């Protein structure tokens, strides 16, 4: 039935809505807000994909998921098939379906979106990912072990994606994480109501089933250096995916008062350390009656909504540009607004006012208007003279961006660029042989899926560096993770020992015997 010719007139005109918990109820707890599709809703929404020949969505996806392919399977109610297509390219559908900025990626270029609302690709992806977790589906390919040891620094999305690809190629993969739990930004940054911890746990378990080992409580750089990993610990290749979590300060008077904290601190205390369950958990996070969050990215939205759930009566979001320029996902701004966050667009803080005892009493702001476009193409906000005003608040949270973490630069010879991020070439190789890097630590703050894309790209380069034949390379040049491959392993070759193209011919027998 799916092969029947569909046109924009014959498909369901309206996007299938996703059920959500009532804003009044959910603003008081940490349960997930969006409930996800059920089978019926998913099949209906899958009808809305035209299966157009151009497939702009595939090109719009940073990892190139065969989107029409998996949607077609949903339409056929073949959910296992849909999962297989998805996991060919995307390791973490349940996560990406929730946190990707689809409106700027696949859905933003969807053909249906030209005349109607775009097909809800993200929601469909999440539906398949959730079904897989519920059913316990895992795609574990035949893995032929080789003699290579690969070390991954950082267990966030970039590290996880790279680890999966290297494990599938037969390497012995160890992922190092400084925190006591793996997941990186997925764990400490994104709150439960957007991405439940159980989903992260499930996705990490999948990696463990591929043979990936996670070593927490390990601060690479300080416990051992990148160079030591190669020279002493026996790693043949290393991937650095440590993210860019060093928060940018506001640099205005009063920014070191008590009650001024970074969104990172707020979110880490709440998500990773469970401050929301204080005193059952020991980490405190007194939130105050009124909270002002500065910034309008996804992190800022998370901070506003976490503050509400921690019991703040009033939560303000302060942003110097207008709503159109806000970098957050549209859905996040919408959810925050529904839950009662008060938005102050075109407003910029100039000072934080103290109560005389070292605490925050309020904030001084100026109003802005939009001027000429700046380098980023967005209209530059300009101060309106004489528009200064004060308002009262007990806590100020700043979410205005992050910088590169300095630890790698302090402890290794890996070259950094002028902004302090790790310098990498197009193949994501760094200045040190065998060491690759990707994700935010190379590009600066970006998205989960972009980091995963970088992790996978680095994995391709690492395989090449190690001399592991990448199934895609000889036969399917130019095609990355097409429908016929499973994380770089050609499905047609599942049962064959992998052949490694390696100038060191003495190494070949050991692999073929294995």
């Amino acid at each position: 039935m799916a092969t029947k010719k569909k046109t924009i007139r014959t498909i369901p005109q309206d996007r299938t809505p996703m059920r959500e918990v009532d804003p009044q109820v959910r603003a008081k707890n940490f349960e997930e807000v969006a409930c996800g599709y059920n089978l019926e809703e998913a099949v209906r929404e899958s009808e809305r994909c035209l299966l157009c020949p151009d497939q702009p969505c595939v090109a719009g996806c940073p990892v190139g998921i065969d989107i029409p392919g998996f949607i077609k399977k949903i339409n056929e109610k073949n959910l296992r098939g849909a999962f297989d297509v998805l996991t060919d390219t995307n390791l973490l559908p349940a996560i990406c379906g929730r946190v990707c900025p689809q409106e700027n990626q696949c859905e933003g270029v969807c053909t249906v979106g030209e005349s109607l609302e775009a097909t809800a690709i993200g929601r469909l992806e999440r539906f398949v990912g959730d079904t897989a977790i519920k059913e316990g589906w895992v795609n574990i390919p035949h893995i032929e072990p080789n003699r290579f040891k690969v070390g991954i620094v950082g267990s966030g999305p970039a590290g996880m994606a790279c680890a999966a690809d290297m494990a599938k190629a037969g390497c012995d993969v160890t992922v190092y994480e400084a925190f006591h739990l793996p997941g990186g930004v997925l764990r400490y940054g994104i709150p439960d109501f957007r991405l439940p911890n159980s989903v992260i746990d499930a996705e990490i378990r999948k990696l463990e089933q591929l043979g990936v080992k996670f070593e927490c409580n390990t601060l690479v750089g300080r416990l051992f250096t990148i160079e030591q990993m190669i020279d002493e610990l026996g790693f043949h290749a290393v991937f650095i995916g440590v993210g860019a979590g060093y928060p940018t300060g506001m640099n205005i008077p009063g920014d070191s008062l008590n009650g001024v904290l970074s969104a990172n601190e707020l979110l880490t205390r709440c998500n990773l350390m469970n401050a929301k369950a204080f005193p059952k958990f020991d980490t405190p996070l007194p939130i105050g009656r009124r909270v002002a969050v500065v910034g309008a990215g996804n992190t800022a939205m998370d901070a506003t909504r976490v503050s509400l759930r921690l019991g703040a009566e009033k939560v303000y979001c302060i942003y110097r540009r207008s709503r159109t320029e806000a970098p957050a996902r549209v859905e996040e701004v919408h959810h925050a607004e529904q839950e009662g966050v008060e938005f102050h667009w075109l407003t910029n803080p100039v000072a934080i006012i103290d109560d005389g005892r070292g605490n925050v009493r309020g904030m001084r702001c100026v109003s802005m208007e939009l001027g000429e476009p700046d380098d980023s193409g967005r209209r530059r906000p300009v101060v309106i003279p004489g528009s200064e005003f004060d308002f009262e608040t007990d806590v100020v949270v700043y979410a205005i961006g992050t910088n590169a973490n300095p630890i790698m630069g302090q402890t290794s010879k890996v070259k950094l660029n002028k902004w302090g991020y790790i310098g990498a070439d197009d193949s994501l190789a760094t200045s040190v042989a065998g060491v690759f890097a990707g994700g935010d630590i190379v590009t600066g703050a970006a998205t989960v899926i972009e980091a995963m894309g970088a992790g996978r790209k680095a994995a391709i380069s690492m395989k090449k560096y190690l001399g592991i034949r990448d199934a895609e390379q000889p036969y399917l040049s130019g095609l990355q993770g097409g429908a016929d491959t499973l994380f770089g392993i050609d499905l047609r070759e599942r049962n064959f020992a992998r052949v490694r193209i390696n100038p060191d011919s003495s190494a070949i027998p050991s692999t073929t015997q294995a």
Partner: protein
Amino acid sequence: MANFEIIRREDFSPVTYLLEVRHPLMAKAARAGQFVIVMQSEQGERIPLTIADYDRKNGTITLVIQAVGKTTMQMQQECQVGTSLYGLVGPMGIPSPISHAKKVMCVGGGLGVAPIFPQARAFKEAGAYVIAVLGFRNKELIFWEDKFRACCDQLILCTNDGSAGMKGLITDGIRMALEGHKNIEEAIAIGPPVMMKACAEATRPHKIKTMVSVNPIMVDGTGMCGGCRVKVGDQVKFACVDGPDFDGHLLDFDDLMSRLQRYTKVEKMAAERWSDSCRMTKQVGPSALDALLPGQVEQKDLLELPDPFEEVQGG
């Protein structure tokens, strides 16, 4: 899950204790001035503790802790030999630069005496003449006198009540050292911020470079939360990745002390709740012994101290 086993424990006083934890990799990597973050249990908080010593041969690191808050009190009760810590990560921070100064003064106040030890030893190994100035409240709280005697050329011991060494504040000891030695090239001070501030003020007129080791409130210890930011000169620095050692003549101590008060209220609440729950499980019915329980003493202690973290860390 990694296993961070406690292989030795020593109680210096009713509130001060030492834990030696097995971690061969860290013992190999640790250098003077670095710190670790400890999580005692899955529900616990992450607390920064300065590494007081490390034994590369036996693969252990040593922490000296004062029970002042909920977590350190609970650790005092539960961290026995043979048990393990849930989380232990480090060594964190930039190691203290051990210069080739010929004469160095190492100042340690209270629990700060523990983390100053590896620095004193490192300077001695680098060939310096090392003067240690150690301050304690009273004789009962003194620890590691022998360790310092073994690696220092001169030891000035002060107690607030005169029960051991010279009577007076640590600044009196510093003054004595400065009078006795005109050619001190460098000073290092670790202790509560008030003490470090006083030490920096004492050396300022003599233009002696003075490094202090700060321990503000931290969550991750990897440069991610920004909770440990301090003002140094006109710059904002993160103690966890840019420190923990800073120039004492440039550091804004008032800002540091004010920021350490951030969670005082909830910390006190948690500590009280914890002592109460201990009392309930230990005692059957109300008892006149209540007044003698450690909980009472520690609560009093809490009120006296500027900040639990600070004392826990010793600097």
